[in-house]
């Protein structure tokens, strides 16, 4: 098994005809991800990816006619909230929104609809998820992965790639790597993903890559203390040197009113028994010392 993406994934790419959509669709297909449909209003009936994938006007058609169960969104910010709602309405179970720059108030409206429908939204402004050897959805580079039994969840993109690369280099493979996105309002939280890893028989340990802003790391710490005893967990928190009141690139990465500091998150996680890495390069070492075996 694995979480969120795997061999059972039947992907529809929303915005498959755009530059990013097409580029990453090729990467995903090359990795072995089963892309069953593309979607682009007005291009229904055409085919994408050298004729290998049918394009539909609507996600509902992609579900009905191609059996899509997962979607990935490469639609500009102005259209992305609608794309998410369309996927939810079509009955898609897992929706990965790569799009960056969606206004927070739009997401405040979208997230309750997603939750009421029981769907899983990953992102927006996220790199997607990869279950090495099975499937990848999103934009995480394929080359950095190694099959294994450590689950990774992160708010970041390239920082995640660094950590995954370091793990793979150390012989530590991953069950699934999930980027939940850098926006303040998004779908699955750290705790949501931790719960999925807890229930995944092929995940033995967890790496969490957090950053300043919000309180999801603190909530994850509470979840870990209650629900993940016995499962080794290592965390790294970015932004210890970030000044207060400034957005550090990610819309969600901001310390304000003394809340959301890296120090606070580190304290909470340590109190929950999570090992804290001072640098991403320390993560493989901490995993090994926690009993994770290279494969």
């Amino acid at each position, binding site marked *: 098994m694995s979480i969120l993406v795997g061999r059972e994934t039947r992907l529809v790419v929303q915005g498959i005809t755009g530059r990013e959509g097409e580029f990453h669709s090729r990467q995903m297909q090359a990795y072995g991800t089963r892309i069953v449909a593309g979607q682009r209003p007005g291009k229904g009936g055409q085919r994408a990816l050298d004729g290998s994938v049918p394009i539909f006007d609507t996600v509902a058609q992609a579900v009905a006619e191609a059996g899509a169960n997962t979607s990935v969104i490469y639609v500009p910010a102005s259209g992305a909230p609608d794309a998410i709602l369309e996927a939810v309405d079509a009955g898609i179970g897992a929706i990965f929104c790569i799009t960056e720059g969606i206004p927070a108030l739009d997401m405040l409206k979208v997230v309750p609809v997603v939750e009421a429908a029981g769907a899983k939204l990953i992102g927006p402004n996220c790199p997607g998820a990869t279950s090495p050897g099975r499937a990848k959805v999103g934009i995480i580079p394929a*080359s950095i992965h190694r099959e294994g039994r450590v689950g990774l969840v992160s708010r970041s993109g390239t920082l995640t790639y660094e950590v995954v690369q370091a793990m793979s280099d150390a012989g530590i493979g991953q069950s699934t790597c999930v980027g939940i996105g850098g926006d303040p309002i998004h779908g699955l939280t750290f705790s949501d993903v931790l719960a999925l890893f807890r229930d995944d028989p092929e995940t033995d340990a967890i790496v969490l890559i957090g950053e300043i802003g919000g309180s999801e790391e603190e909530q994850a710490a509470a979840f870990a203390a209650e629900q993940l005893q016995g499962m080794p967990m290592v965390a790294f928190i970015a932004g210890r040197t970030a000044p207060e009141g400034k957005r550090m690139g990610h819309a969600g990465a901001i310390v304000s009113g003394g809340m959301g500091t890296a120090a606070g998150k580190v304290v909470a996680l340590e109190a929950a028994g999570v090992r804290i890495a001072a640098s991403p390069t320390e993560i493989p070492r901490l995993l090994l010392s926690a009993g994770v075996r290279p494969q």
Partner: protein
Amino acid sequence: MKLQEFHARQLLRASGLPVPAWSVATTPHEVGEAAVGYLAGGAERVVVKAQVLVGGRGKAGGVKLAANPEEAAAIGRAILGMEIRGIRVRRVLVAPAADIVHEYYLGAVIDRAARRILLMGSAAGGVEIEEVARTDPAAVVRVHAHPHLGLLGYQARQMAFALGLGAHLAEAVAIARGLVATMVANDADLVEVNPLAIVRERASDGTETLSLQCLDAKVTIDDSALPRHPELEAMRDLDEEDPADVEARAADLSFIKLEGTIGCMVNGAGLAMTTMDLVKRAGGAPANFLDIGGGARSDKVATAMRLILSDANVRAILVNIFGGITRGDEVARGLIEARAQQERDVPMVVRIVGTNAAEAATILEAAAFETATSLDDAAARAVAAAERAGAAA
């Protein structure tokens, strides 16, 4: 994006909230003129407030009362041109001073954990809400707006009653709902009125009336929503911005100036923060946060380099690129171009891994760049280079 107080007042007033009259003045003469009008209109005094986007105006002497036009002009002269936390005051707001009976706090923010708009109120107005939350958490009243229907009538009433504003129920309800409506209409992520005040006014026949009024306003706009609000983008105060910030925004780079000596150029926000953290851990101090984004081409690299070097404190540069979408060889070529244009010679440590890292290594080697492979090693080398440069200077 933070708005100046007078812009924030405009937005509140456009939503129908009770904001007393004000003028904006850029010269002591204009301050005096405005004061004449308000004093003639019945005000006993006027308040003159520096319009800057940093906190602590009051403590810095940027907010003063005047009892006559001459005093107002004198205060204007003192405040205009003053520096507050490094920002020069170019404009002041002039308004009739209110006869305040009681001050409240009312503010709307985005509650990330609850995924709702959160309206916070406190009967202890005039002080910062974070301060109240710290010292007397029970004194902060919290109500979450409905995600689709906004702040409902009963929620506004709950807030009003909890603040003890039952005697001003209709006004308080209209203000609470108007605050959230202002947030939604303008894609704000903060709308704050502090103080919201019960103000006493005397009519010419001596009768007194009490009313709720918004005596200050703070609004920040969600940057992601600015593309659909050109009217708010137009309120951006370029006078108050560092030219480097303006250039970074134009080039679509995420750049934040800091106090240290080691310039950082990284792709990805998380990795950029981490790079800063590792510089610090290696004993140095980062001069900036800079995310060149995904798929950055060589021209973007050149702009990034120019921004970093515009800071005279920079003694060394650390380039840290993890090639995913971004191609390492492209960045390497960009660095060579940038170095060719560079007016100041600053040591550079470059780490490029991921997509096309091997090609990048060949290019960098040919151009005699100092390179590093691990993150920690790169940070340590940059700190060492900065120390050498500092010692030489």
